[in-house]
């Protein structure tokens, strides 16, 4: 390992390093706190490797531009925060419908509306899931520390290619702005999934939306030898608009099934001391750091606490949460919103009474003392 790969940088910079590692060569974005550093660093880095950076006129244009650039065969990304993420929702649905590999980073801040631009929140979990209209499935990954920001960013690019879909990286202000040590992996340390391109020869009909037996859809770059139509309308295997009920039904099932049926493959999570735990904390993103601190602290005092840290938020890994939390007496979800993941954990555990929420919604990072105080309340000890 060369010492040049040891860094002390912001989470947003780690995301940049990982995106480049994964093969990013086109970024379009619009300035917004607390994600701006991603655009700033890519404005420097992308032209150095012959890639393209463009600051668009708004977030809508940014996501549209990356979708266009993905179709010419590039790995693409945009980065934003809550208000910009809201603006991107229609085009996000387009990327779902047209099956365009792309990565959208949302470094969460307090909302709704302009909210708390410089303060932390995890309030966009459900927006990531249901922000765009219509039935669909989505992949959403998150991370609590810099090595994981790196891994999850690379995974986001890999999953975008594997499933031909937009992938959301849901970071938060604390992870994005915090500086900590990270050792950047060497090339080859993490496998990279390249775009699956069609083997259909020039002059032979290529069907852009006809899945192979394994469900995957090989692509053909715009500007190449296969000319086809891409649309956000319900479309047939040629990519041409269709009103056929069978086509509509088949397409919607395909879009949902290709992700929901792979929930096991997509699930990423970490466990700490959960095997014999009476109480399991479930957390993700920066709040999982405080939850881990509480678990380590309590274990030293002999209390049987464990942590389940989720890194895949969507499709929600209900099966993982269910199996890990099944033996626990109670489960406490630590998050910085009004209980967006808590609702999913309740569904997974199947018993609302044993699932509690430990949260902060005031823009202040939830710290171990906050969690300890809430644990005391749950345990009937008073604060």
């Amino acid at each position, binding site marked *: 390992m060369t010492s040049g790969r040891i860094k002390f940088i912001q989470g947003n910079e780690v995301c940049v390093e990982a995106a480049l590692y994964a093969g990013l060569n086109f970024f379009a974005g619009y300035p917004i706190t607390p994600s701006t550093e991603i655009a700033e660093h890519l404005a420097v880095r992308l032209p150095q490797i012959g890639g393209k950076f463009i600051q*668009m006129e708004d977030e809508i244009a940014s996501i549209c531009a990356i*979708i266009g*650039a993905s179709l010419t065969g590039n790995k693409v990304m945009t980065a934003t925060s809550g208000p910009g993420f809201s603006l991107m929702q*229609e085009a996000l649905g387009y990327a779902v419908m047209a099956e365009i590999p792309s990565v959208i980073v949302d470094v969460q801040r307090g909302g709704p509306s302009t909210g708390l631009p410089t303060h932390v929140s995890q309030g966009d979990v459900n927006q990531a899931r249901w922000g765009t209209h219509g039935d669909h499935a989505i992949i959403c990954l998150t991370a609590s520390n810099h090595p994981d920001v790196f891994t999850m960013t690379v995974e986001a690019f890999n999953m975008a290619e594997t499933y031909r879909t937009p992938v959301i990286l849901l970071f938060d202000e604390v992870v994005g702005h915090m500086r900590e040590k990270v050792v950047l992996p060497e090339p080859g340390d993490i496998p990279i999934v390249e775009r699956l391109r069609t083997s259909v020869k020039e002059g032979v009909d290529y069907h852009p939306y006809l899945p192979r037996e394994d469900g995957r859809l090989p692509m053909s770059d715009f*500007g*190449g030898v296969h*000319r086809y139509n891409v649309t*956000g309308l319900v479309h047939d295997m040629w990519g041409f608009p269709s009103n056929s009920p069978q086509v509509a039904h088949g397409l919607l099932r395909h879009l949902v099934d290709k992700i929901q049926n792979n929930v096991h493959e997509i699930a990423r999570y970490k466990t700490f001391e959960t095997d014999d735990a009476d109480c399991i904390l479930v957390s993700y993103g920066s709040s999982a750091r405080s939850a881990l601190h509480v678990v380590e602290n309590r274990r030293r005092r002999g209390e049987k606490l464990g942590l389940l840290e989720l890194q895949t938020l969507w499709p929600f890994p209900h099966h993982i949460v269910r199996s890990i939390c099944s033996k626990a007496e109670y489960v406490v979800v630590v998050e910085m919103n009004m209980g967006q993941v808590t609702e999913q954990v309740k569904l997974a555990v199947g018993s609302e009474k044993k699932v509690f929420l430990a949260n902060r919604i005031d823009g202040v990072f939830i710290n171990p003392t906050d969690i300890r105080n809430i644990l005391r309340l749950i345990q009937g000890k008073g604060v």
Partner: protein
Amino acid sequence: MSIRKYIRERFFPHMWCPGCGHGIILNAMLHAIDRIGISKNEIVMVSGIGCSSRISGYVDFHTLHTIHGRALAFATGVKLSRPELNLIVPMGDGDALAIGGNHFIHAARRNIDITAIVMNNRIYGMTGGQYSPLSGEGILATTAPYRNIDQGFDIVQLATAAGASFVARSTTYHVQQLTDIIEKAIRHRGFSVVEVMSQCPTYFGRKNKEGGPVEMMKLMKDKTVPKDSKAAEDHPELVPRGIFVDKALPEYCDQYARVIETAQKGR
């Protein structure tokens, strides 16, 4: 028919109403492309939503039918990532200048090498005849039952002010001129805007008592004049057509190539 090779016959018949002007624009566009002789693999047509935007489905290029108003933003991503491709973006008047107005002026400001064709029928046809930012005052529409009070944009002036390096206007009546202009617009290196006045007999014509397609096209003949002509001077109330701007300005992708050079020097 030399342009037949550009058509996806599989997807015909098209969905435009009888008498719609958009087919004439498609015809002129394909003749212009044929004259230039660009290979089909080197053309990407990007469109948004509306009657006009369905044009992309019918042509045998790389075609990207996107979301309402955002065609130029998608096209910017395609062009910047593959500058050697030819980008043609047909849009409706509402698509280009209401919901898409911001992208329109910014694409013009960047002078990115994209040919924007605004198929201006002054109405939202797909949704059944609502007023657009090009309808102009006094027009009747389903959402202007007491006549429209909104001023209309002048596309030529707007594009010029925003920095487009090629700006022209023609109509579906003047199809020879239209073909020449589209050819020049595609050949032009930089952001080109061609406004094509088109007829919507179904909604605009019927509602505003302009008659059928023939009468509406005759109206375009009568109400427009070649720019800088004696007729234009004598009749300032008539709409001038022709090429208004045609100048060489630094093109965005060329400029970005220099950014790459600079960035790589510093390494």
